[in-house]
């Protein structure tokens, strides 16, 4: 999923304080799962903002709403009947959702309430870690299902650097050495020989080096 964290209240207030009426818009997908921008967080942020604004002697009318998916034009259309009276939209979706809104409602200011973080998964309750950089040419089949691009601090593709100690990365004891993890997996799978294969320099065009990426599925495109 795409993970996110809420921006500091002060930054959000700076965005919205010129307005009298705003739409605070959650998203029911990834940001709900990572507890950053779902219905519940929309409610919490709305009251947090009202309280903070009250203290400073101002107020804004905040209308709360949560879409099934903010990155999907079909769901964003739902907003058309309600958007007219709103002066601005404060989005609690990831950056994809924010941009969907900005593209659809060309004359309406749209602000992000979240910082989009990374593609990852849940490690345990309340903990998420990065797992994919979206390089566009997945090599997990060669590395025992653990990604050195996303999980090695130097994105080394041919083994651990000289800083790997007791399974930890040189940058922090809180970071596991990706190549230790890969090696453990290769051993468990009986694929130790695979380590000796040199992974050649990567073609980063598929990873964004070729400019903004797009997928066109001829069988689905209208």
């Amino acid at each position: 999923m795409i993970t996110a964290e809420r921006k500091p209240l002060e930054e959000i207030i700076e965005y919205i304080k010129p307005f009298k009426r705003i739409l605070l818009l959650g998203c029911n997908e990834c940001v709900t799962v990572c507890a950053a921008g779902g219905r519940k967080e929309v409610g919490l942020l709305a009251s947090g903002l009202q309280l903070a604004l009250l203290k400073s002697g101002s107020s804004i009318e905040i209308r709360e709403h949560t879409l099934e998916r903010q990155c999907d034009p079909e769901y964003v259309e739902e907003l058309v009947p309600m958007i007219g009276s709103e002066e601005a939209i404060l989005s609690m979706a990831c950056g994809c959702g924010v941009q969907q809104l900005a593209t659809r409602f060309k004359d309406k200011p749209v602000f992000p309430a979240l910082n989009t973080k990374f593609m990852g998964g849940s490690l345990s309750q309340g903990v998420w870690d990065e797992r994919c950089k979206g390089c566009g040419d997945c090599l997990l089949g060669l590395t025992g299902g653990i990604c050195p691009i996303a999980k090695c601090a130097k994105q080394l593709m041919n083994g651990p650097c000289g800083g790997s100690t007791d399974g930890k990365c040189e940058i922090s004891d809180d970071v596991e050495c990706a190549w230790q993890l890969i090696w453990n997996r290769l051993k468990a799978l009986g694929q130790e020989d695979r380590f000796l294969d040199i992974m050649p320099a990567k073609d980063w065009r598929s990873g964004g080096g070729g400019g903004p990426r797009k997928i066109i599925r001829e069988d689905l495109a209208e």
Partner: protein
Amino acid sequence: MKTESNLEKVLAAGHLAVTSECGPPRGAVAKELTDKAKYLEGVVDAVNVTDNQTAMVRMSSLAGSVLIKQQGMHPLLQVVTRDRNRLAIQADILGAYSLGIDTMLCLSGDHTKFGDHPMAANVHDIDSIQLIQMVKGMRDESKFQGGSDIKGAPKMFIGAAANPFADPFELRVMRLAKKIAAGVDFIQTQCIFNIEKFELWMEGVRKMGLHKKCYILAGVTPMKSVGAARYMKNRVPGMDVPADVVERMASVPKEKQPDEGVDICIETIERLKKVEGVAGFHIMAIEWEEKVEEIVRRAGLYPRPEIS
């Protein structure tokens, strides 16, 4: 011979090679570098010029190498993949070779977290093994990494680092094997304090016959003080300083510790000379370049061979 590198000539002639290093200054004063380099004149076969070491901005290793070259010495250009992509690195290699630099070291580099620009983006377009492949392709096939032809190929003698003390230990010989398969000509190891562990690594190296496929220069460092020993033991990632070495440094009064550090270094070299497959020594006397000559002389590695 693959190149005109003085280091290659010394190694190919069967001598124990000696290299040392010179870190460029954190400013634009050439004299700071050339003053340090003077201590190494006639004492070593090549002088490593570090590339933004510990991720701190310094004068570029290419400029530093040129300055060393102008002193009539043989620079060994260090290149890390942290700061430049493949275009910039290849451009620098062409430039370096055009200025008479024919020996280089391929590294991934310390993480930016450790330096004075932790906010910088790490490049890592390629890793150190892919860098070796690239430099070899430029030299032996006159091809850029992208595939087009080079007019006037840079003939670099290609080095890389190896750390026998990092984890997982069982991968450390295999990683050297990968570097050799990628095309490395010589290796400089991490500083050796744990000689038993180094010998164990060399056993694995010999078992795969790797010592016959590249030259292995054993890395040594004289410690200035027990504080330095403790710092390296506890704070430098991938360093293995055994407790008895720290104790030995602590056992002498403060003013005698530099001498003790030099003694340990020389004893280490003497022991490593007996290890089959060690082709020379890389003496990393960080900000202590003036001690290198004494170490080289006392370790019986002086004078350095003159090979034309």
